[in-house]
């Protein structure tokens, strides 16, 4: 039988990263095909190619056996492919019907919006879902589940035959999830084909007819429902060859520098406790959205904690804001390099100097020469490739930009360094250099904390690590104590189910 949709030999490269290489994927009519893989495995990229947002470098798309020639956003919608992104794309202060019919509002003969017809059409579109929603209601007043359904209704009203759902249950509660599953079953019965992306293996087992696993931009395997256990799936998700991309060093953990006790913030984390020692790298692993970044931001004073205690060198400290944290010797290298780590329109020099201007000034007046010396030395020692320190950072490559962020914090000698996804979007060569720099910090006697979504990175670089699941530390382990499959189980929350 001819599949409804076929993607064959899809390859996509971004500067410095190969996101997809030669991936093939197909979808039958009325089928739910689950797409599973680690963070960064290439699921979202593949779906963005299907939605027309990205253009594949190589490979073809076929719909009902016919090759899709033009793959723009609008064309794909017209072909009946509807994508519901993880972050919903509704306009909060417009009504439900305006959202569903945005850009194709029915008109009266005077050219104004035909509200009564639009509301009627909205009721029709929402009818299958049996919801208590009025077309006039503003979207912001609805919960996440209802918003999700409106997205589905919108896609269906565009005659979508293929629906792509990217982590649809991420923001839903138990009952809402049940409701969504009901709707998915109805849709399938009505002949809609669904591509379902999820981290939650249980869901995948419940819903999927077939499962495809991606890893590092390649398709590992496609299997029918019920022919693969959780353990097998995890093995396929993480199983990779260990290469010499992780420089080794002998750590000598010293005294505890940073200790966190019972850190709690409603909706973000609960009862988080850990201790980071001088001279070691402490990893934080977990799925995207598990709350690792938020936990660190709370410690750093960027968010306010509800309860809990932070101790530095054994003394309780109160960190009210980021300035407090820096003054007390904590540095945070944020996840979003461009939005939070750098000032893109300023020079390498200005960026690197930003965190130390207070140390090298008298009554607010800068000691230009000393700052210049410090920055130049640091930039040389970090091997940042830039024609001059006056170059704007916007013109540097991702790896070099990241090194500028690191330089900014290395110049200021901190006792605790918190790295949030330090190697994201960076090529392998630069990664190795960044690992070395982190190890040097540890050798210098700092406590280094590293959040990473790349399992092998955590397994190989950190001396100890904590697994975070839904805002809690569910496991702490030493290097070599667990294997990747076990860590993945904890990240997915499977250990709790197993115990129960």
């Amino acid at each position, binding site marked *: 039988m001819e599949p409804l949709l076929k993607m064959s030999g899809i390859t996509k490269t971004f500067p410095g990263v190969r996101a997809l290489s030669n991936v093939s994927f197909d979808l039958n009519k009325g089928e739910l095909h689950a797409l599973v893989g680690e963070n960064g495995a290439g699921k979202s990229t593949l779906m963005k190619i299907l939605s027309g947002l990205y253009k594949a470098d190589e490979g073809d798309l076929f719909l009902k056996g016919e090759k899709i020639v033009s793959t723009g956003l609008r064309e794909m919608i017209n072909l009946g492919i509807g994508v519901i992104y993880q972050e919903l794309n509704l306009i909060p202060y417009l009504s439900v019907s305006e959202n569903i019919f945005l850009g194709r509002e029915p008109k009266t003969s005077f050219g104004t919006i035909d509200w009564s017809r639009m509301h009627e059409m909205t009721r029709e579109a929402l009818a299958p879902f049996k919801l208590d929603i009025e077309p006039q209601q503003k979207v912001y007043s609805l919960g996440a589940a209802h918003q999700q359904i409106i997205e589905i209704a919108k896609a269906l009203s565009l005659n979508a035959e293929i629906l792509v759902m990217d982590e649809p249950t991420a923001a839903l509660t138990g009952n809402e999830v049940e409701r969504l599953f009901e709707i998915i079953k109805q849709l399938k019965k009505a002949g809609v084909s669904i591509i379902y992306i999820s981290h939650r293996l249980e869901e995948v087992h419940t819903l999927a007819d077939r499962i495809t696993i991606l890893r590092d931009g390649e398709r590992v395997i496609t299997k029918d429902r019920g022919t693969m256990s959780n353990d097998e799936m995890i093995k396929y998700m993480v199983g990779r060859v260990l290469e010499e991309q992780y420089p080794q060093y002998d750590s000598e953990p010293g005294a505890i520098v940073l200790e966190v006790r019972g850190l709690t913030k409603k909706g973000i984390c609960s009862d988080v406790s850990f201790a980071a020692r001088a001279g070691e790298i402490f990893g934080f692993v977990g799925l995207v959205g598990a709350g690792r970044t938020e936990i660190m931001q709370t410690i750093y004073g960027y968010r306010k904690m509800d309860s809990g205690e932070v101790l530095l060198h054994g003394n309780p400290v109160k960190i009210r804001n*980021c300035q407090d944290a820096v003054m007390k010797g904590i540095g945070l290298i944020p996840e979003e390099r461009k939005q*939070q780590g750098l*000032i893109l329109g300023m020079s390498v020099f200005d960026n690197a100097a*930003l965190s130390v201007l*207070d140390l090298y000034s008298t009554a607010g007046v800068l000691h230009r020469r000393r700052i210049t010396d410090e920055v130049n030395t640091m930039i040389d020692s970090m091997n940042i490739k830039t024609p001059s320190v006056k170059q704007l950072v916007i013109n540097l490559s991702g790896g070099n930009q990241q090194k500028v962020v690191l330089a900014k914090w290395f110049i200021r000698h901190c006792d605790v360094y918190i790295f949030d996804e330090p190697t994201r979007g960076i090529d392998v060569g630069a990664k190795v250099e960044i690992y070395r720099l982190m190890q040097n910090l540890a050798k210098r006697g700092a406590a280094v904390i590293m959040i990473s979504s790349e399992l092998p990175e955590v397994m190989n670089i950190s001396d100890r690590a904590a697994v975070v699941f839904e805002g809690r530390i569910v496991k702490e382990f030493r290097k070599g104590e667990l294997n990747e499959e076990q860590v993945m189980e904890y990240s997915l929350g499977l250990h709790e189910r197993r115990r129960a």
Partner: protein
Amino acid sequence: MKDAELDVTYKGVLRITMKKIIDYKQLLKNNGILIVFFLICLALSFLSPYFFTVNNILNIIRQTSIYGIIAVGMTFVILTGGIDLSVGSILALSGAVAAGLMKNNAVAPLIAALAAILVGAIIGLINGLLVTIGKIAPFVVTLGMVTIARGVTLIYTKGYPISGFSPEFRELGGGYVLGIPVPVIVFVIMVALAWFVLNHTRLGRYTYAIGGNEETVKLSGINLNFYKSMVYVIVGVMSSVSALILTSRLNSAEAVAGQGYELDVIAAVVIGGTSLSGGRGSIIGTLIGALLIGVINNGMNLLGISPYFQQVVKGGLIIGAVILDRLRAESN
């Protein structure tokens, strides 16, 4: 053969001309406003024999200095990505306060001047705190402050002008030192001071950094609220300095003083190449921007162009300057 030769020559000329156009474009992009400024000065020197005289030039700079001083402060605010619409009202209030204190020689001019500057600083601080701690958009905060400060001025003056000051105070607006008008000297000092602060102090570098990316500044452990508030204090103080000069020059403080000044001030900063979204710009640019407006005002008066038409030209100038800026940004 002849045709071919001609062809070659023609292409050659074309190429040379093209090259010249490109160079010219590059030049215009990098020093656009400065070139426009010189061209206008050159044109006016030919059109009006009086334009290029020492007297007239000093006159232009003296008139420019009133709003130019405020533009110096405004440069700080706009560099952070903010805006202050209340400068004209701050000018009126601090001028009235100084005048009220000095009336009938009740208080020494120096003390009165310090009081006026304090008033400007306080209003600026209120603006700054509402923007930072209150998290209200600068446009809204300072729009409200426009009428609040003006209203307080009316209450304080009861609507009557305050006049009659000591000769020494009159020197501030009308006096000369070594043949240079005192307001011009004050203006130059303020520009120099601002240049130093922007380039050699933490406050200055953070001003640029805040406009470039506030989030990064905050996460770098810098006291964002403090530095962001400070720029409003600076523009407040500059408005007060300007108020003192204006009051001295007119020998009178009125509740309506400085009305509409914010437009000329913001225009000077924007024409000078400072980006309204923040992070990019310079004090030298503002100086040229302010002088350009002064020259155009003066030139059009000399040429007898109607004040109505002058408005149109000034508006066109602002938009033209922003287009120029956009071209420069896109070519980078």
